[in-house]
């Protein structure tokens, strides 16, 4: 899929662990792990909002478009 989840990069920049982020935004670690690996069909706007608030970033920092994939 050409949509690439770059949440890992943002988490590394903010030096935030998955466990902490999951607790902060109220998401299970399993779901966060699925999201990080891109094994999901979609992301809800409210999840995106929470992620952006927790990582102090914009939605574009979390997902990217790569037409080659």
């Amino acid at each position, binding site marked *: 899929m050409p949509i690439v989840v770059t949440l890992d990069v943002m988490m590394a920049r903010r030096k935030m662990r998955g466990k902490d982020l999951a607790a902060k935004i109220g998401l299970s670690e399993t779901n966060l792990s699925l999201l990080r690996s891109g094994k999901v*069909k*979609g992301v*809800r706007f409210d999840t995106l909002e929470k992620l952006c608030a927790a990582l102090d970033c914009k939605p574009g920092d979390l997902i990217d478009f790569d037409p080659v994939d």
Partner: protein
Amino acid sequence: MMTTLDDMAVGRSGRRLADLFGWLFGAGAFLLVSEVLYRPLKVFGFSLAGGASADAFGSFAEVLVGALPTAALLGAMWSARALFRGFEGGDVLAVETSRRLSRLGDWLVVSAVLAILIAPTAPGGLSIESNFQGLLADLALGCVGLAIRLLGRVFSSAAAIKAEHDQII
């Protein structure tokens, strides 16, 4: 997956209905054996011992065939029990639920078809009027079975949509 209060309520209702259908199945099976099959089976046994096996087998087979629609209804009750037992966990929109629902519809259709095919030859000499009423009841049962089968297909689609929805985080 999180279990909500609604899921728990569905689970409790499912358990109660599963118990009810379990009891109905047990009572139905007991009545089928005691009221319909026991005496012919006994006669068949004595006839076999007496040597008249061909006639005895024929009349016993006739009773057995006559009991097939009821046996199919018992199968429907068992399927309903399995269906509601599956609701206990609160996971209603599942592939297994749609399969069980379709199976319940199948049993009802089978029972109706068997009743329509077998009823005219059943012993007892039914009047035309009561035969017609029975036919109507069997047709209605068959239609309900077909409707439940369709519902099973709808459940199957709903389960697929839910599975996709669960992948949206």
